[in-house]
């Protein structure tokens, strides 16, 4: 595994295939908690940690228990139970050992159980047969993408509160329109790695294709792309 591939997977799961803006996971907390910067960052950090640990644990359970005993169809039940209990355990541990952190993150932890981003990333990582290392990078990138968007969006929303907005669009509607503009900006990151070979516009395989071991672009592909970008 080369450095290029690592960078590519993290960036594509963070920016190109952003959890919120292009996969629509975790919209509830995205709209609900992004009103103030502090709570947005708190929620984002908690989600990064929970996504990483939950995906790791569910990936291990999926590959070493469910697949082995041919119980793949139980994955939804098992995953949600694992995530719910994990969140509880994390809450207890933080409460016991880092009470100051618990004070700032504590209220967001119970909300994370029903955050679709956690279950969504865990299921995607399991279903697409990612290798262990790819799964770790994918989970990390997805979590960081969530944090990034929460951070940017909380700034915009704080600013929106101060501005004059048509009465009907106040609050959530204008926030959704702003999210749409943000999504346009983020979807343009695909353009960075677009090839212009002849008529056919070939895009780089998107994250999920890349990470399934079959379609991983070769070393040469990355080198060529990088050279062209220079």
């Amino acid at each position, binding site marked *: 595994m080369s450095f290029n591939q690592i960078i590519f997977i993290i960036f594509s799961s963070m920016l190109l295939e952003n959890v919120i803006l292009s996969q629509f996971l975790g919209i509830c907390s995205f709209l609900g908690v992004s009103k103030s910067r502090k709570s947005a960052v708190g929620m984002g950090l908690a989600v990064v940690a929970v996504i990483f640990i939950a995906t790791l644990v569910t990936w291990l359970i999926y590959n070493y228990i469910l697949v082995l005993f041919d119980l793949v*169809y139980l994955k939804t039940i098992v995953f949600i139970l694992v995530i719910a209990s994990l969140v509880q355990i994390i809450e207890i541990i933080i409460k016991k050992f880092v009470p100051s952190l618990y004070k700032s993150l504590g209220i967001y932890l119970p909300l994370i159980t029903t955050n679709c981003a956690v279950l969504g990333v865990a299921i995607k990582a399991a279903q697409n047969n990612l290798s262990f290392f790819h799964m770790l990078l994918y989970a990390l990138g997805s979590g960081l993408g969530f944090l990034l968007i929460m951070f940017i969006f909380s700034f915009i929303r704080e600013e929106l509160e101060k501005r004059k907005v048509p009465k009907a669009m106040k609050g959530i509607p204008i926030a*959704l*329109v702003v999210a*749409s503009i943000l999504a346009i900006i983020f979807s343009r990151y695909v353009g960075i790695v677009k090839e212009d070979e002849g008529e056919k516009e070939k895009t780089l395989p998107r994250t999920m294709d890349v990470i399934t071991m079959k379609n991983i672009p070769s070393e040469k592909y990355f080198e060529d792309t990088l050279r062209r970008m220079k």
Partner: protein
Amino acid sequence: MTKKENFLKGFINENPLFVLLLGTCPALAITTTLENALGMGIAFIFVLVMSNTIISLINSFKKLKELIQPVRIAVYIVIIASLVTIVEMLMQAYLPELYNSLGVFISLITVNCIVLGRAEAYASSNKVSDSVIDGISMGLGYTFALIIISLARELLGNGTITIWGNLVINLKGVFEFLHITPISFFTSSAGAFMVLGIILGIMQAIKNSKEAKKQELEKAKKEVK
């Protein structure tokens, strides 16, 4: 609340998506075609009605209710997750194309706030019959919302309306007649946010104008007196 009111509340007054803002993730992700919206709606109604029925049944036995009281959320989640698994397996077997296009969002009904919210807020403290009606009402209301969003997105973005399978209404001719092309922006992810935002804005504007009219009426009444 009468049974009829209970049935009608999910459509406009307490619409889970437009008013309560729950379950936004699938509403944005799978509404690219009407077919997806309908499939999601059917799966959702099944899960919601069944979970409401089972949970209100469990809660109608006093001893059972006391027994699960401390861990009730976990019990509800397990019930919902099992129902979702049933839907997932049925869909994979009989409607594989729909299953593929809905993808991970079928499994994500488990963490949809509407199902758990209805279980906790309504089904756990109401009769079985009322809970079933509540489930149907909320499910239909959610489907209704999905249909509106998907109609707007598919029509503006692609110029077609896919009802089911090969049953497609092609309105590209109308677009050509008006010398405009469908705007593919609406089928992209950014379009989803925009459409939902504008729909919510329109709903809010209607609500505001209704309230303004009410206030005017009251003022007029006072003046008459």
